[in-house]
């Protein structure tokens, strides 16, 4: 790997596990974090939302590939599109489903639009940067994978994920873990094969390839038929770029995408704090010991003079 792996670097330098040293290093790592921009040869998926017909084949393929439990309703039951969870929101990823398809009725569009949700596999994942046991890894192939063996269950990753993707197996008392799409890393991506959902899609909604090629393809498609797509590839720049990207013919805000995320990776918002850590660690001891000497100098002087 040409790129220096920050996390391994820090891990190595941390053998002592000294809190002070650790937090100092953490800051340095974050300072480099903002311009990471992703592995050069990472893979990606381009999702053309205009092609999706909502057949849920991808959901079934994911369920089978990942060995997930049988769903409450079979995959050919389309009443799930009418399901609303709390807050009137459509379905989201759960511990039993790493990907779900939702239907959106869009005014002025002949047919409803279907949108597939799964982990977007960010270049600089918020889940990864927020995890204090280093359970997440962004692989050079582009997948964000998770190690359940070290997870403590603090669920900060779920707080941090801007896409509300990670789910948690709350039902387990003995071994609850985070449940999320890993882009079929273990069984497919590692061997250069596309994820199960991509391969299963009968409509060819998803194109699998190198992320940079997918970006080029997306812009080609937008330019080839002016007016067909909105002029934005969702995921190209959002929160530092994601491996999964989307093309749509209606504004993304109308079909449940968060369009206020900005281009900065989530970790950039945390840097203001991380910057003060080494400062406090290095300046406070001398500063406050100095305060102590100043505050007690009268008394010390008195003691000295009585001694003399």
């Amino acid at each position, binding site marked *: 790997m040409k790129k220096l792996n920050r996390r391994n670097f820090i891990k190595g330098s941390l053998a002592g596990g000294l809190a002070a040293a650790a937090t100092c290093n953490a800051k340095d790592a974050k300072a480099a974090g903002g311009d990471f921009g992703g592995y050069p040869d990472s893979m990606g998926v381009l999702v053309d939302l205009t092609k999706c017909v909502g057949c849920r084949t991808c959901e079934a393929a994911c369920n089978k590939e990942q060995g997930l439990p049988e769903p409450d309703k079979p995959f050919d039951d389309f009443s799930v599109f009418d399901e609303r969870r709390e807050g009137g929101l459509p379905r989201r990823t759960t511990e039993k489903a790493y990907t779900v398809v939702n239907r959106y009725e869009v005014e002025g569009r002949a047919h409803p639009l279907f949108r597939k949700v799964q982990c977007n596999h960010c270049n600089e994942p918020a889940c990864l940067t927020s995890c204090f046991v280093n359970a997440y890894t962004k692989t050079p192939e582009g997948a964000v994978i998770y190690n359940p063996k070290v997870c403590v269950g603090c669920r900060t990753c779920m707080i941090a994920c801007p896409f509300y993707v990670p789910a948690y197996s709350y039902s387990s008392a003995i071994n609850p873990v985070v449940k999320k799409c890993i882009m079929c890393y273990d069984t497919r991506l590692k061997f250069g094969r596309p994820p199960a959902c991509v391969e299963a899609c009968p409509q060819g909604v998803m194109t699998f390839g190198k992320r940079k090629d997918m970006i080029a393809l997306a812009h080609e498609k937008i330019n080839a038929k002016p007016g067909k797509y909105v002029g934005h590839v969702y995921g190209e720049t959002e929160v530092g770029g994601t491996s999964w990207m989307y093309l749509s013919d209606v504004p993304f805000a109308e079909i449940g995408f968060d369009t206020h995320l900005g281009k900065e990776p989530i970790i950039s918002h945390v840097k203001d704090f991380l910057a003060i850590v080494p400062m406090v*660690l290095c300046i406070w001891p001398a500063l406050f010991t100095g305060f102590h000497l100043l505050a007690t100098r009268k008394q010390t002087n008195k003691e000295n003079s009585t001694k003399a």
Partner: protein
Amino acid sequence: MEKLKTAGFQPIDTLIKPDTNNPWSLKDKLLLGLSPQEYMRQLLRNPFNWILAVIYAIGIPILVGRFIFGLGWATHSSYDYPWGLFLGWGLFVMVPLSASGFMLGTTVELFGRKDFKPIERLGLLNGLLGYFFAVVFLQVDLGQPWRLVYPMFVSLGPAAVLFLVAWHVATYLSVQVAELVPAASELMGWVKPKKFIKSIVLGLTVSGIILSTLHQGALGALFTYAPGKVHPLWYSAAFQWFHFFCSSIFGGLSMLIAVSTLSKWFLKWRCDNNFLKNLDTITLGIAKGCSLALITYLVIKFVALAHDNEWGYLLTGWGQLYIFEITAGVIFPLFLFTMAIRTNRAGLARLAAFIAVFGIALNRLNTALITFNWNLYQEIPHWREFAIAVMVYATYIVVYRAVLYRLPILYTWQGDSK
């Protein structure tokens, strides 16, 4: 207890039994010098213990259930609200209210303000217990609490804010235990440990300041991972850590005033004259600290609004909640503290302290739960979550009270241990 005291009972405050030359046994010390029967009788006489009994009768089975059936049984097992009451209350509210430890350590040991000595140990104890029970709450909330030490020794993720919190809270807990060793030494008649701690007290205090600055701030910084989820009025990438740190200063101090007031009301038999006589002056002194922290906090809150240009949100419904929080939880206690100082009325400062504690709790709950996911929906935690939270908090009170009964916190030890 008051009754016993009027009947001539004298709680233990020396190593040697008066009238005889024999030292108090450990059993005597634990039972406050009462016979087991007398001790049981005073336990049953106290109506507060009956309330506790009810809380435990409901809470313990539910807590056991949480570990048998999992978090899914005790909470709504929400994917959108992964943090509920256990962290919202137990971590984010309790930790700032426990900042008194480092504040009083700094005042007395670092700045040499010996006039605050009578309340120093109460401040330290309030800190230690608050942190300890924040960890207890965390253990209830973690999916796999038996892996608590993983971030320390098994798999390190040092680039995460929570890593800093974990390490600092752990280190700071040991600092606070060390700072209270002298109190325990006196009760047990140890000489060396007390001497040793005395020799390193400045180092302990300074590390207390460092660790507190960073982890109080880090608790705020945790929310900077969720820029779109926390409501903009409660979110500020640049100032979040400072909001949390600065408010923990008056939070901890106000909690100390609140606890000392409760001690004065309900544990008067255990307080000695040194404590009771000086308490009003000390309360007003702490009130000065509170008002300085409050005004700083208020200004920096508005600076944050201006920095991100969020004035428009003030006109929304969320804005009303924000204005209520700032008015009732910051401006009002600030006003009362100032009045109290100017008119020299400790009672007014006590009222202000209780309100400021409420203000902190409201702010943390607003940030972590109420306005979190303001774009989605509001979630009210499961009733079992409430039951467990109340029970754990009751345990905090029980332990707190048990320590105050025994260790020389509210009273000065009349022993030889120097």
